[in-house]
């Protein structure tokens, strides 16, 4: 059993560095994810690791602990629906309103090992004919350099390519490399990755027409959720779209995003834009 002062030390550290709120009943997560780090450093138990943190507070160890606790599994076309909404509503709306500039920027705010940005890139690739002359940027950010390194290489296990990815897409966009599957260079080149902490200022990121921020806010406390969403809104135009996870909502957190009626997890930056999307759906 972990002592409560140890739990508080680590959970305080996680909150401060990543915004992650670790409830007491998730103490098993600390044990399962941090024990391997202890062993890797030649320490016998989690207690030894906590002592190391307490006594030395070495930056590399703190980074490693934060990354281990904030890394979450991801899969291609996760939940399907948001990707259909992207393809059928969010994108068509922008193709119309940006017809003159022909430029769209998309941010995956918790890109993890790349499945979400690559799923978007595959959708865009499939619509290539329609998008001739368009400049569409996909930027994937994550707190963890380790997951981003994996994302950039684009190598996935047999298990990973079977969750959510239609077999036709595997045939079309992946190459077999030994036991692994690598997403093709043309898809990899459509996404750029950058290590970024959502608690840091957004000033250098530029503006975004579409933001995917799925299954991230659930780990934050209420004020952090509001703060992150409100700062995101400032990067977006009046016809921007925000995607949250199926279990997430802006209700009671911020009024800066407007739910699109009948489309769970989809938000617009203005009521007018939400209505445009609703009409697209009706037509």
């Amino acid at each position: 059993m972990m002592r409560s002062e140890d739990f508080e030390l680590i959970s305080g550290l996680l909150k401060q560095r990543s915004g992650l709120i670790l409830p007491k009943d998730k103490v098993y997560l600390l044990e399962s994810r941090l024990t391997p780090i202890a062993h890797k450093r030649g320490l016998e138990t989690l207690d030894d690791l906590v002592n190391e943190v307490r006594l030395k507070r070495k930056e590399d160890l703190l980074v490693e602990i934060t990354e281990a606790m904030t890394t979450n599994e991801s899969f291609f076309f996760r939940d399907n629906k948001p990707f259909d909404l992207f393809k059928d509503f969010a994108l068509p709306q922008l193709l119309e309103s940006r017809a003159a500039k022909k430029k769209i920027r998309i941010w995956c705010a918790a890109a993890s090992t790349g499945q979400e940005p690559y799923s978007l890139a595959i959708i865009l690739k499939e619509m290539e004919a329609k998008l001739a002359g368009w400049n569409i940027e996909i930027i994937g950010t994550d707190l963890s350099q380790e997951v981003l390194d994996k994302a950039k290489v684009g190598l996935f296990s047999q298990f990973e390519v079977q969750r959510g990815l239609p077999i036709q897409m595997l045939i079309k966009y992946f190459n077999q490399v030994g036991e692994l599957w690598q997403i093709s260079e043309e898809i990899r080149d459509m996404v750029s990755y950058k290590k970024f902490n959502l608690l840091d200022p957004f000033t250098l990121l530029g503006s975004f027409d579409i933001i995917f921020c799925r299954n991230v806010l659930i780990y934050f406390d209420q004020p952090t959720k509001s703060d992150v969403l409100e700062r995101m809104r400032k990067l977006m135009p009046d016809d921007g779209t925000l995607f949250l996870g199926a279990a997430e909502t802006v209700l009671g957190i911020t009024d800066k995003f407007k739910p699109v009626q009948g489309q769970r997890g989809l938000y617009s930056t203005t009521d007018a834009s939400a209505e445009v999307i609703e009409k697209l759906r009706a037509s």
Partner: protein
Amino acid sequence: MKSCLVVDDSKIIRKVARRILEELNFDIQEAVDGQDALDNCKGSMPDVVLLDWNMPVMNGLDFLKALRKTEGGTEPVVVFCTTENDMSHISAAISAGADEYIMKPFDREIIESKFVQVGLL
């Protein structure tokens, strides 16, 4: 309730697949090889076939080709489920009319996700 024909020469795999698919609300039939499966389909076409590749008597690919030529045989959704995990086998299966492809080992989540892909769930 949709019907699923589980075709595999391994009794254990059939049992595992049956358990997963029954939980997903499928009515399960079993066949031990391609010929057995084909006879089964000629009796009544299932909504979906979960199909192994390497089996005695008639393998999965030969079954699939024969099925697609049988009357009503273009209707069932066919999902391969095999240890053959290289691109040439996958491409051959899809060219022969398979709708999806699962590389063993599989778990409930993979079956579920693939069945969602092909619109069965």
